[in-house]
């Protein structure tokens, strides 16, 4: 296994390009990072909520026909909230689901949204003339570095902390301070259960990684990606932060691609 530093940039001659690119990036329209983070975190309870509703409507279908009568009062928005379940409740419900099939459906939904985002995001990044990007022969290592550096930076404002590979299609990406879960409070004594609760939040970035790889020639059926919690190598991250780092284990299963 070789370790790679992710952050290093190209040669000196690239500096002006680099600077220009930075200016270009800064000129793009922006929105508040918090809003984005809340949106992506809300994907998990949303996916659970959808699952519950689909389940419910399946049950009702038999004895329906009557419910079609509900008056479409556009202006009464309180009506839209009649069956709302708070997000934290939905996340707990997901954890407590005994039905494995149901759990997987929810997780698939989260991954799928991540996949779509990853897929379009790499397009977005590649068409910005980023001088960091050079995919010679679609080399998988370069693509992984692209994920670690550019994709992560764009999404989370930080890079992946460490990348390891055996040069035979196995990669480990370590993020020791994954921003969307940074502020989740975990009580030390309830660690195991609470980590389970946070697990679904790792499926969005799993989808992202698979989406990016798919857009660059590695279709989802040739890629396995699993996220697990890992301990941090050192303790320079404040106590207020989430207690664990994340490891993304990526396996490229095709023989032809190096």
């Amino acid at each position, binding site marked *: 296994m070789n370790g790679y530093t992710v952050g290093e940039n190209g040669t000196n001659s690239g500096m002006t390009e680099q600077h220009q690119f930075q200016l270009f*990036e800064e000129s*793009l*329209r*922006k*929105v*508040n*990072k*918090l*809003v*984005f983070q*809340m*949106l*992506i975190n*809300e*994907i998990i*309870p*949303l996916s659970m*909520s*959808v699952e519950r*509703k*689909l389940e419910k409507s399946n049950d009702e279908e038999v004895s329906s026909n009557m419910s079609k009568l509900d008056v*479409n009062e*556009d*202006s*009464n*928005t*309180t009506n*839209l*909230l009649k069956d*709302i379940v*708070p*997000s934290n409740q939905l996340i707990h419900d997901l954890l407590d689901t005994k039905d494995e099939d149901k759990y997987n459906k929810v997780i698939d*939904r989260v991954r*799928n*949204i991540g996949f*779509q*985002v990853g897929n*379009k*995001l790499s397009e*977005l990044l590649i068409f910005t003339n980023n001088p960091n990007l050079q995919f010679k022969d679609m080399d998988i290592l370069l693509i992984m570095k692209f994920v670690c550096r550019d994709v992560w930076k*764009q*999404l989370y*404002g930080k890079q992946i902390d460490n990348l390891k590979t055996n040069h035979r299609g196995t990669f480990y990406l370590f993020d020791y301070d994954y921003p969307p879960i940074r502020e989740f409070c975990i009580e030390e004594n309830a660690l195991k259960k609470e980590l389970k609760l946070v697990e679904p939040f790792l499926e969005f970035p799993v989808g992202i990684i698979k989406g990016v790889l798919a857009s660059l020639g590695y279709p989802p059926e040739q890629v396995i990606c699993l996220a697990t919690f890992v301990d941090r190598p050192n303790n320079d991250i404040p106590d207020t932060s989430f207690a664990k780092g994340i490891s993304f284990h990526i396996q490229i299963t095709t023989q032809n691609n190096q």
Partner: protein
Amino acid sequence: MSRQQSINSSQTAASATAQSPLSRSFKATGEDVWKRTEKINAELFTLTYGAIVSQLCTDYGRDFTKINEQLFQMGYSIGVRLIEDFLARTALPRCQDMQETSEALSKCAFKVFLNITPRVTNWSSTKDTFSLIIDENPLSDFVELPMDAMEQLWYSNVLCGVLKGALEMVQLDCDVFFVSDILRGDQQTELRVKLNKVLKDEIPIGED
């Protein structure tokens, strides 16, 4: 109007009186907070929201009534939490009436979170209902809807939910809904906010 409407329970009771200086201070506050805010590329935000809507279209088999509802609920869940951050960052005083509320929404809330400032217009004669005209919508940049969706989908309905949830947390029971959307071929994107009643002023959580 006899009753006071409270948008914020901060202890710094409003000393503001005239409308125009306050309105200017909303603008200044919004811009100031925006400057100090961590930001991300708007296009990333757009495509992420797009991925969510598209997933819902798949899940609900293009039943747009259900999609509208789900987006609204998602927004509500965000709004009830987002308001905390908003109050903490802006430290705005209580709004005295809906006119102030509308300014706070447009010049502060929309500015701070989405970097846009929708126009406030179409006031009802009772001054409890107004519209926000959203000229640039970072949720729907470059989005085009297929025909069936154009007729029924409120693509940005998450916004209504966010406002509904946030306003409710500051004791304003409102209806929030779109009346038109450029994505549907309308002239403009108009979001309507209608005050139903001011909820009883309860002691906010965390304040003694």
